[in-house]
């Protein structure tokens, strides 16, 4: 079909240039550029209000673009939103399962919105319920499911049209650690099946585990872009020593160490490429507690977006 013919095999799945979204005077997305390669997991990492969800909604044609260019599968989103959504699976931030339908009815009715029905779809539903380990609960109503199960059902629902691209808005927010690990496992499996994943998150661990490439967003702009390891190498030192204890003593010790310092709450973070001397000194100072670890995405994130509280 025309929709598939327009894209070269390795052309980007999503491409945005100077993409902008304004609500009145407020600029939610401020001229961002990004492109998502097929088969990759691409993440938008940012604090609340950074413009992540707005970007996703524009990508799916659910909110009009104010300015710039945006194509998905090589198609301009504005004119081809329905065709694009037909080839995409969307997992929204809050579950919006149909409370009146059972687990399997939720999938069957959702399939009907794509014009899909029949024996093929029944077997696809069985397969998807197995994939998200809900085969036993197929006759249950969503209200009877745990938060993790509802999320898995929402993911299964997003796969009902065998999408090439799966878009997930904060897929594990509000879930307990076990449930998050199950979701991460399923998403990794999807990637191994060649699906392109696009997700937003504010969990560093999630971004670090899942994303091949990510952008850090704040105030509608992209602050940095790259693989998790590239971002860490580019923006922060290799090591961090986190100290807790009496403020003045900590400060005095750290200032002499030559590390880059960041205060957060009653912890002091000392960033350095050479942690050995400071650790040596800290060994004799029993009144100060410290943790030494390699730097991670969280350090990049905090360095770029600042440490003030967001709501």
């Amino acid at each position: 079909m025309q929709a598939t013919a327009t894209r070269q095999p390795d052309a980007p799945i999503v491409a945005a240039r100077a993409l902008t979204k304004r609500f009145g005077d407020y600029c939610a997305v401020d001229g961002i550029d990004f492109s998502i390669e097929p088969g990759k997991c691409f993440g938008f990492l940012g604090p609340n209000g950074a413009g992540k969800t707005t970007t996703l909604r524009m990508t799916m044609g659910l909110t009009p673009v104010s300015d710039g260019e945006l194509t998905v599968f090589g198609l301009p989103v504005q004119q081809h939103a329905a065709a694009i959504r037909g080839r995409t699976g969307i997992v929204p931030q809050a579950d919006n399962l149909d409370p009146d339908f059972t687990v399997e009815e939720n999938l069957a009715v959702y399939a009907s919105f794509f014009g899909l029905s029949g024996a093929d779809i029944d077997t696809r539903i069985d397969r998807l319920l197995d994939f998200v380990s809900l085969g036993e609960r197929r006759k249950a109503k969503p209200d009877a499911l745990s938060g993790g199960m509802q999320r898995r059902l929402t993911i299964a629902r997003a796969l009902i049209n065998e999408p090439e691209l799966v878009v997930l808005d904060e897929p594990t927010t509000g879930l307990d650690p076990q449930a998050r690990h199950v979701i991460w496992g399923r998403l990794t499996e999807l990637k191994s099946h060649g699906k392109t994943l696009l997700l937003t998150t504010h969990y560093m661990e999630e971004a670090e585990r899942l994303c091949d490439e990510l952008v850090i967003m704040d105030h509608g702009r992209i602050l940095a872009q790259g693989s998790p390891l590239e971002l860490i190498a580019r923006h922060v030192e290799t090591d961090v020593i986190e100290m807790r204890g009496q403020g003045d003593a900590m400060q005095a010790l750290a200032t002499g160490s030559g590390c880059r310092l960041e205060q957060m709450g009653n912890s002091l973070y000392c960033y350095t490429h050479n942690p050995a001397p400071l650790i040596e000194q800290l060994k004799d100072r029993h009144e100060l507690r410290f943790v030494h670890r390699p730097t991670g995405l969280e350090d990049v994130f905090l360095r770029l977006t600042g440490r003030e509280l967001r709501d």
Partner: protein
Amino acid sequence: MATLTLPRIRPAALYVWRRNILVWRKLLVPAMLMNFGEPVLYLLGMGYGLGHFVGDMAGMPYLAFLASGIIASSAMTTASFEGMYSVFTRMVPQKTYEAILATPLDVDDIVAGEMLWCATKALFSGVAILAVATVLGVVQGWQSLWVIPVVFLVGLCFAGPAMIMSSLAASYDFFSYYFVLVVTPMFILCGVFYPVDTLPDVLQGAVQVLPLTHAVHLTRGLVAGAELTQPLLHLAVLMIYALVSYLIAAILVRRKLMI
């Protein structure tokens, strides 16, 4: 999709309609009870009770007069309730439309599908009353079956304004205004309980622009055999209300959801 382009009506709207009828089927018993229970109460209570004192009205037994009017007013209230409380539930707290919009369907399909569904529920209530009225012996022959498509049209004509209210509402409380200021006055004034020509002159002119007046003319003509002098005018008024309210509802719901 720009907010102001003309809405399209596509077969995809039927997917939304189908979703609703599948939910309705699960609640069949209470739904049927509502459909039959209310008109039976009205017809028995008012038709026999009040009819005992009234005798004939406009050349027919009061029960026949009332039954043929209630078919229209019940289509109005059914479509209005569905288009407000149920549509609002799906639009806001339940986020059903958000889920539907993640598929190839768009807002126009949702609005058209919901209006068809509201009209379908109006049709169910109309059929129920027609059945009760038939049992009570106040239905005039087979031509009264024509009232079924008419009731569907009446449903469409009230579904649109109800959906406009849903798109403007911040909460369920808002709908009280519409019921008190629009639905109830029509129920009382548009000829359901007495002929409109007994109203003061000023009001007689005013009720001619209200859709329920035209709906009642049609249902009374078809069900009770009253003389129908201007059927095309009545149909045209209902169609214009349905079409214009669909266009406005589609634009307002887009504004609410496509932000």
